């Protein structure tokens, strides 16, 4: 995991941004926006809430740049922050709609639950999409957060573990298990079973 190159580069970017370089900031945003968005998505936030949490997460990063120079901690910090902000929004939304408990079980915002989404997917991806939708929610979340990486970067396990509230050591095995399941679904082709569990 000691991938020295990219980490050194991140340290440099954060230092430069902290010193006021807006191009460095733009680059950090470019590298991490997909990951922050993925964390919003796995929390099934409604679109307006996802937009708020996304913005709020970036403002918190900005406010804490000086203390985020250790790049190994950067991913975990951003994952934790986005998760906490997401959970706070969910808590407040639950308070605002107290009568019906079940609404939480099926929140909008998970692309895998969006019936329109498959039409956006090219043919070559349709099979993969269908197989992905059959995975358990846990597997979808783990893979969703892990697959997003910057160009030439690596998946950020620190970020994913923090964002999902999982011990980092369990992420590798879970990933392996979920991918095996996904491969099985792919082999079976598009079945009629709705394997959502």
């Amino acid at each position, binding site marked *: *995991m000691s991938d020295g190159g990219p980490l050194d580069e991140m340290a440099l970017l954060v230092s430069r*941004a902290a010193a006021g370089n*807006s191009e460095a*900031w*733009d680059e950090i*945003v*470019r590298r991490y*926006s*997909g990951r*922050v*968005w*993925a964390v919003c998505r796995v929390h099934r936030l409604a679109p*307006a809430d996802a*937009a*708020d*949490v*996304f*913005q*709020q997460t*970036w*403002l*918190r990063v*900005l*406010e804490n740049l000086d203390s985020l120079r250790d790049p190994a901690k950067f991913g975990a910090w951003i994952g934790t922050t986005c998760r906490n*902000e997401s959970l*706070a*929004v969910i*808590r*407040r939304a*639950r*308070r605002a709609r*107290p*009568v019906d408990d079940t609404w939480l079980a099926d929140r909008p915002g998970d*692309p895998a639950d969006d019936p329109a*989404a498959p039409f*956006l*997917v*090219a043919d070559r*991806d349709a099979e*993969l*999409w269908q197989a*992905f939708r059959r995975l358990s929610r846990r597997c979808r979340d783990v*893979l*969703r957060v*892990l*697959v*997003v*990486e910057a160009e030439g970067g690596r*998946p950020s*396990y620190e970020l994913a573990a923090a964002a999902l509230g999982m011990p*980092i*050591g369990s*992420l*590798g*095995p879970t*990933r*392996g298990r979920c*991918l095996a399941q*996904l*491969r099985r679904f792919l082999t079976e082709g598009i079945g009629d079973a709705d394997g959502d569990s």
Partner: protein
Amino acid sequence: MNDAYDPADERLLTRLGDLFARVDAPPEPLVELARQSFGLRALDAELAALVEDSESACDAAVHRRAVAVRDPGTAPQPRQLTFQVVGPHGHDEVVIAVQVEFLGTRRRLTGHLAPQGPARIEVRQPAAPQARRVDADGRGLFVVEDVLPGPLSLTCRRSGAPVVTTEWTLV
């Protein structure tokens, strides 16, 4: 982490990554706002941390929920936020206490400063193109109307004291 690199796993992850990059990338206007937020840095200001939030108390949701079930017509109760700068010797230097009222799609802030005294309060929101300014009176009281839902930060300027800015908070 035992990251046994299975090339087949890596290929599958890459395919998934490409898929999500196409069907569920972060919306470009949001990414642009994140870039522009760099201009919202509070330079040379002391950060007032959020030390109390009535919404984050563990039992707050349960309590409010019980209240709301009894009286479903009630508007959400105001939220209480307390921001504070702690000095080098561990005592409070500045406290900014804010009550957030929910008025439809807008928020109203009622705040007070300690130590009390007049101040200029700057209201920053990424959704608003310009920071707004209101005055706190001689007792350190201030009101901000028509606040947009979303991230918010207040900056407090008073003569003879360091500039203080609150931690970004979603309201």
